């Protein structure tokens, strides 16, 4: 299901790129390059499983990463945006008791992961082509896939041995609100705020024993970018 959605999103973007364009601000196609500032508003259930004491939880650190997007202008007021960030390295810290026995837990980086999280958004743009500053709002779908999942030495110490991490992919809604400012005929500056819903189940396997936590992420993203239209 998730592969089909991802395929559909990329296919849609590719199809849009080859159709006849509404000329807009120097062109119907825009590529944007900028920075994602991501704050994880994560809520996780306590880790459960064999030999897990109560009250063990996790916290995700904020990240910044490169923002890339392709925007196809559909009409005066609508565009379609396919955005993706360079997979940032996200560090997960333990939250709970300071130590487990004599092994430090709270505040220790227990795992890392990278995530690929493209979003396909349909934006409504206020104003018209002659307006220099145009606010916009959009809704769409986000797909998040977790890559390079690693348990750290601190994580292995807390888990009780070498640990493999599993985080299934997620599909969820996303919404955005932003401002586009025309610098020149082909150039724009953008600033936007987005939020997406990402759900996943953390599964950590150590010596054949499985521990889990359900994690609900709400990545709050501030994007600052520049775009070239053609």
């Amino acid at each position, binding site marked *: 299901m998730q592969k089909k959605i991802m395929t559909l999103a*990329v296919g849609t*973007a*590719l199809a849009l*790129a*080859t159709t006849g*364009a509404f000329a807009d601000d120097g*062109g119907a*196609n825009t*590529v944007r390059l900028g920075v994602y500032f991501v704050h994880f508003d994560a809520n996780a259930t306590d880790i459960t499983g064999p*030999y897990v*004491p109560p009250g063990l939880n996790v916290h995700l650190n904020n990240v910044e990463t490169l923002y*890339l997007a*392709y925007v196809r202008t559909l009409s005066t007021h609508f565009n379609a945006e*396919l955005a*993706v960030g*360079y*997979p940032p390295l996200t560090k997960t810290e333990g939250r709970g008791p300071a*130590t*487990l*026995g*004599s*092994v430090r837990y709270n505040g220790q980086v227990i795992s890392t992961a*990278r995530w*690929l999280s*493209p979003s396909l958004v349909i934006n409504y743009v206020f104003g018209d082509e002659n307006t220099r500053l145009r606010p916009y709002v959009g809704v769409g779908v986000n797909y998040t*896939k*977790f*890559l*390079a*999942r*690693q*348990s750290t030495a601190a994580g*292995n*110490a807390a888990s*009780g*041995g*070498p*640990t*493999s*991490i*599993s985080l299934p992919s997620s599909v969820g809604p996303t919404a955005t609100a932003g401002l586009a400012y025309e610098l020149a005929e082909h150039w724009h500056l953008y600033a936007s705020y987005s939020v997406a819903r990402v759900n996943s189940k953390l599964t950590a*396997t*150590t*010596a*054949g*024993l499985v521990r889990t936590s359900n994690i609900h992420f709400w990545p709050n993203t501030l994007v600052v970018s520049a775009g070239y239209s*053609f």
Partner: protein
Amino acid sequence: MLRNIGVLWVAAATLGLAACGGTNSPTGKVASSNQRGTLIDNPALRIASVNASDFAAQLKATASGPQLLQLAGTPACGVDFYYFKYWTVGPDNSAQMASGSLMVPTGSGTQCTGPRPIVLYAHGTTTDSAYNIANISDTTNSANSEAATIAAVFAAQGYIVVAPNYLGYDISTLGYHPYLNGSENAMVMIDALTAARAALLTTFTPNTSDNAKLYITGYSEGGYVAMATVKAMQAGGDPVTASAPASGPYALEAFGDAIFFGQVNIGSTIFGPLATTSYQHAYSNVYSQTSDVYSSTFASGIDTLLPSATPIGTLFQSGKLPQTSFFDSTTPTSSTGIGAVDAAADQLLAIPTSPPYSASQAALFDLGFGNPYLVNNTYRVAYVDDAVINGDEAEMTLIGGGTLNSGNVALAATSMIGLRKDLAMNDMRSGGWSPQEPMLMCGGDQDPTVYFQNAQIMAALWTPFVTGGLVSVLDLNGAPQAGSPFAPLQVALQQTEAQLIAAGGPSAVASFHATEAPFCLVAARGFFAVVP
């Protein structure tokens, strides 16, 4: 052109990002073989890790911890507690999964790292099917106290500890426990040692290793299993440095006879069903149906009752087992038609009185009689008749008031009762063996659960080895001898038991078997320290 470049760019970017691989941390290996002694998950799981000061602090925070600390000493080392799973075999030679604990000393002290000796520990009787001596983190697990004791006495003082959970407990799917089956439990112990030695190679402390010194000990059922393991390892040519079986039912036939003669021990209503179920599975000769042995009140389902996930207190309260009434308080009579046999049997079937027993002994034995009762009268009479006709020499010597020696402690020549045959088969006097390495048998002559006669009978059998110093016996309730390294332990134990009696009255003696456990284990440690 620009549109095509845009398409190519998006496609290239998507492909490039997708090339960020989904690698994961390496995890352990799962064994594909189910051969005896195979470690299933390698590395094993470390359940807990405490440094020396944290361990001391945690013990101090428990009810019995301060006394244990005083007895065992301040931890010199921290301890890493591992849980390992391994393959062994059941009584039918089928591959069986079992589990156990590996405790590894940690810290920078010279006695805490590098090549260290191993203590192979056998645990005592438990009815709790979830018993897991590795789960030190769960204070509600029934194994927690015993785990903390062996950690404090041995691991925190620099010994690597290997302690299996036995078949029938924790993850074992055997469905019952091969209770007091010596050769079977010895295999479980030996296989646990093999697996633990493999686990030791991949712990968080790679500098800590096996220095090839192996000490075997255990308490209660564990004392018996420890001795059976020594016997099996000697027979297999596997080296044992020294052993210290403690308070175990080594002379099983004599012990069983004593109980059926009315010297009912504390815990009999638990030990009886465990033993008959174990032997029925192994030898199919205890009964045709459970009502052959047990009264109609308790016969149904008694063969699948223990071990149980239900607490033993609940089993007592719900009427699944009587708490203490092993035999009928209405005395049955023997009717073999052989006058001498019937007379002797009737005397042995009677509820014990004082004299000939002491008042406190008689009071304890009498707890084993009541109604409803566990063992039916027909079976008890048949057993006693057989024990009179085919007497266990050691038990007959004791009943007659004689002194045990190497010439009067033989097993019965034969038996017509399946249970007695099984007890004889698993009696540590069988097989004509004796220890080849130093052995200390610790116990207490006031123990109301596993009588000290067990150690006395073995010591009598092995008189030359006792005389030669290879085998030692420590009676914690005996008079401390000046200059004996165990004298302080004896004094401390006797003071503790006196305090229990003062607080709880004569019935407090019922707890002596548990009370003596840590004292015997500390004695074992002292013994191991001086063995060449």
